[in-house]
């Protein structure tokens, strides 16, 4: 079994050269996340089994930009989002948002702090209270944070409805009278109500049709331009993220495997997992065919998070895996400034040679 070979047995000559966190820190970030870990205990009292949902990830989000976190379900991307607003209590690590050490906040300050961080959830159907009218739903965060007088709140609801492109009479409706896209607009209006600096978008459009999705994404982009909001956009759909994100992190089993500028990752993906994700995007235009890597089939499914494979966690499904992969969990390699990938292959040669051009 490969598991018996420890790191000490392997001659280490590789010098990982990059740190995406360091790079993003230079970009005047609003959010800084360092070595974030969230472990759940999976066994009983005596069983110390752990599920490492998020296992030491570091990144930063420059102010006013969008960071897209991409990965399959179960890779820990939503947990990361929840940790950012401390809905989930991280096991260890450091989160700083706008200079505040989030993990250090006592309960009462945490509540105040959450004004700055809002979430839009995936399923607009179940994240709106079915028994409240739209105006109550949108005004709720204002009530919680006691912002403004009653009259000011009513006015605020009107401006918000206008901002997200809903007719004013909708404030007297109930969520079930709205379509999926409209409900998601209400969710966005609610998140905007307290003037947040960071909005966590947890798969905001994956429950919507393509035509509605396009409109919601356009709305989010417009709002960002107007209000200079920072987005943390979680999704499993790479074709959506290309147009909306400035930075992308690809996540696999609790760890980031590739981080970088959106154009760099799409034009020159370096991690086999990123390439597999990109190659599985269904396309309808022939010109898109040239933009995605040759098809890569992944073997099997995402492994059981209780028994993460040794070395590089992706090796069990990687078409390029070789012996060394089971022993070494690589660090980030700098492909170029602003593009980092964590694959042993990145040191020896770049996938560029593989393209055949």
């Amino acid at each position, binding site marked *: 079994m490969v598991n018996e070979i420890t790191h000490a047995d392997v001659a280490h000559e590789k010098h990982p050269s990059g740190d995406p966190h360091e790079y993003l820190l230079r970009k005047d970030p609003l959010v800084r996340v360092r070595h974030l870990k969230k472990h759940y205990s999976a066994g009983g009292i005596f069983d110390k089994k752990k599920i490492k949902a998020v296992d030491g990830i570091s990144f930063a989000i420059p102010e006013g930009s969008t960071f897209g976190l991409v990965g*399959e*379900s179960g890779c820990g991307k939503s947990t990361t989002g929840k940790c950012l607003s401390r809905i989930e209590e991280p096991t260890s690590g450091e989160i700083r948002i706008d200079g505040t050490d989030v993990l250090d906040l006592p309960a009462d300050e945490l509540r105040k702090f959450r004004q700055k961080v809002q979430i839009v959830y995936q399923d607009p159907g179940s994240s709106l209270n079915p028994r409240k009218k739209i105006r109550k739903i949108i005004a709720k965060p204002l009530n919680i944070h006691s912002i403004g007088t009653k009259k000011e709140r009513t006015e605020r609801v009107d401006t918000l409805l206008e901002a997200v492109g809903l007719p004013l009479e909708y404030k007297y409706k109930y969520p079930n009278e709205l*379509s*999926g*896209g409209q409900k998601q607009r209400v969710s966005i209006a609610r998140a905007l109500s307290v003037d947040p600096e960071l909005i966590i978008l947890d798969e905001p459009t994956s429950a919507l*049709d*393509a*035509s*509605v*999705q*396009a*409109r*919601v*994404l*356009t709305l989010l982009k417009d709002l960002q331009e107007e209000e200079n909001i920072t987005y943390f956009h979680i999704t*499993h*759909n*790479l*074709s*959506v993220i*290309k*147009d*909306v994100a400035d930075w992308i992190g690809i996540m696999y089993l609790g760890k980031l495997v590739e981080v970088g500028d959106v154009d760099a990752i*799409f034009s020159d993906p370096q991690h086999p997992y990123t390439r*597999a*994700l990109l190659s*599985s*995007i*269904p*396309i*309808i*235009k022939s*010109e*898109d065919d040239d*933009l*995605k890597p040759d098809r890569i*089939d*992944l073997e*099997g*499914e*995402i492994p059981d998070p209780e028994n993460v494979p040794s070395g590089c966690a992706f090796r069990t499904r990687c078409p390029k895996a070789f012996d060394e992969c089971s022993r070494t969990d690589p660090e980030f390699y700098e492909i170029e400034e602003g593009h980092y990938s964590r694959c042993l292959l990145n040191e020896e040669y770049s996938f560029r040679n593989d393209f055949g051009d």
Partner: protein
Amino acid sequence: MSNPILEINDLKASFKTYEGTANVLDGIDLTIHEGEAMALVGETGCGKSLTTELILDLVPAARTSGEMKFKDEVVYSPSVDERSTLRGENISIIMQDPMSSLNPVFTIGEQMTDILLFGGGEKSPIDYLKHKLTRNGAERKKARERAREVLNEVQISSPERVLSSYPSELSGGMRQRILIGMALLADPDLLIADEPGTALDVTTEKKILEILKDIVDNRDTSVIYITHDLGVAHEVSDRVTVMYAGQVVERSPTDVIFDTPMHPYTRTLLESVPSLSTGIGEGSEGSIPSYVDVEAECRFADRCEFSEAACRGVHPGERTLDQGQSVACHLYKQDTGGRSADDTDEPYIGPPPWRTEQKRAD
């Protein structure tokens, strides 16, 4: 062209609601040929799932009219017994949501063998209990053997382990494969796949669609794929039928429709698919009209930038164009094959602007 396996003519369906009668399906015609993969495309609520559910008679509340032929036999409103054999043995459906379509308290093996032992025909609970209690060893074994075969076919690597698992022990991709397997148990001639893979990740979805496509090609089964994702339709189907608000607006071979979409609605749909080269589109304004009081004859008229009085007053009817496309839109002249186009008394607004632009460019 091979023989049609299923023909639907002028299918209408309405529901009684508090607001009045909702006329959801407005004269749907569909033909599926043997060995053909057809994609039924449209946004949520346009009636695509309802159409297929009506084929299987799964919507007792609907008031329907029209004619449906399966292999040249008229099957609409037959007796319950006939319909359930049709449902079990000739037509199978793969349900959309792999999370909720399996019974959580039975193992996969039990659920699959039950289909084989009890599928088709009505059975009372007493029959079921009798069967469970008296050990029909040989029969049961045979059914299990068949279940294992089918699981192999959907590329499940350890069928024996899966057969003795409960749904909660399996991943979404696995469950979706099992649902495909279950639909294949009775060797159907027509398979209906209702948004297969929509609930799954991109990589898993891709795999599922490939498995399904392989199986369909090998067996020469006909399939109807229901999807709102044009990218999916592009990868799996031979022919695409686009629906809008209970009407068929365009039908076309798959390789043609993505290059030359004819109906304005098809164009907006295509434009809103996120693309690597051009990014996400603008999307289209508005939503499907309420089915209770649809006024316009062409139901897309309210959202269409080219709509004129004729669109509201007269239903466009289907116009045949070259390349095997047909479209229900007043923007097009019927290609009448030699006969003068003036013979048709349906109004004609004029060629859509994007076509004249194209011509000028040529």
